[in-house]
């Protein structure tokens, strides 16, 4: 895990509470189980067919019978349930997910999310992202603060095709935590190595909460 990723996923884990049902999207979110502290009893939902997914299985291969949505072998916890895609998405749309942790290309100030397509360049497809973004009670986006061109992931309006509108509750980068407050993303916590100025780098017009949370 790279240092920035570790800062992000460790901060994201602190958004979770015991008893929550949590889906971890492809990419950085799948790093979360490996940093989950003992005693945090969340039920991990994986859209390819599990509730109760556990740690990565280092002895497995990508041909294993138990893989996560990103194709990596995992263990199941005792009491896990395995099911098909139909049940998996019925649970998602039925409102059984407390949290979905997703990656992003862009998050807009209004909480719109774009994470499935860069026209002409990259078309991975939306997979289960649209349902997760629309239907989880809280959507946490984990992402580097800037893209490789130095542009902030938090933008005034998304330019890429949307995954879902107004869905993001929280955006966590290696510099800050943003929460959607009164319909607009707001800086709510800043990493100790950063300042309000470095958080605003590449991001136009973001407000700070009156009182910042500790990181």
């Amino acid at each position: 895990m790279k240092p920035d990723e570790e800062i992000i996923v460790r901060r994201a884990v602190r958004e979770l509470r015991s008893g929550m049902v949590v889906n971890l999207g492809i990419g950085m979110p799948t790093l979360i189980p490996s940093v989950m502290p003992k005693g945090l009893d969340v039920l991990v939902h994986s859209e390819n067919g599990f509730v109760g997914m556990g740690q990565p299985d280092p002895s497995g291969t990508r041909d294993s019978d138990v893989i996560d949505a990103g194709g990596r072998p995992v263990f199941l916890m005792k009491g896990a349930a395995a099911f098909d895609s139909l049940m998996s998405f019925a649970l998602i749309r039925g409102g059984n997910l407390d949290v979905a942790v997703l990656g992003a290309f862009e998050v807009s100030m209004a909480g719109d999310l774009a994470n499935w397509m860069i026209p002409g360049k990259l078309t991975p497809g939306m997979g289960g992202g649209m349902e997760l973004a629309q239907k989880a009670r809280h959507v946490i986006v984990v992402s580097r603060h800037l893209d490789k061109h130095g542009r902030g992931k938090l933008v005034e309006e998304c330019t890429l095709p949307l995954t879902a509108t107004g869905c993001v509750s929280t955006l966590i980068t290696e510099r800050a935590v943003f929460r959607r407050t009164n319909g607009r993303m707001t800086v709510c916590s800043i990493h100790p190595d950063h300042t309000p100025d470095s958080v605003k780098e590449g991001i136009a017009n973001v407000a700070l909460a009156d009182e910042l949370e500790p990181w």
Partner: protein
Amino acid sequence: MIDRVRELEDALDEYVRSGQTIMVSGFGRGGVPFSVLEFMADRSSRFEGLTLVKNDANEPDLGIGMLLKRGQVKHLVSTHIGLNPDFIDQMNRGEVTCELVPQGIFAERIRAGGAGIPAFLTDIGIGTVVADGKTAVELDGRTLLVERALRGDVALLCADVADRLGNCWWRGSNRNMAVVMGMACDRVIVEAKRIVEPGEIEPENVHLPCVCVDAVVQAGERRHVAEGRHF
């Protein structure tokens, strides 16, 4: 460790109220939460004015037949009431109302409620009284009925095996409407004939995943019942 095993009375106290819409599993005598229903019938003043959603009306004095007889139910959504002549009499006297739904559409509407599908289109019931009052739409040259999702406040289920997390498994013909009802209600109480530790049900064989379940209570020893009479 998450542990959803509760005392029956505690779970009912916390989740069940008069006036609610309550889904009850069971087909005939299979998979009916008899212990929970007996508890509610014995305390009829605490559980009144209910709307029940159940495949059938059971038999008089059995399962929901007890709640129906004690006047705890104002409306029943069901598919078949033929084994409960007392209920048919109550209905004919206007004491209770009943909506009869084709059995597969009943299951499908409840599943839609649980699966976040607001409505679906079907040709079942076209040309019959079931179509009366329903919105019909044209799709690709066919006339279809709009059937709406059905949700409940509470589901009362009887499982053959449940683990402490709430994962459930059913024997034989006991599963019937239980899984879809467990998905379609805000609160789900499972009366389990046998409660086991997490991991004892193979992950692949779990019929209803634990995330749908709020409380697991131990089913009582069922009094032997034959031909509608308790012995």
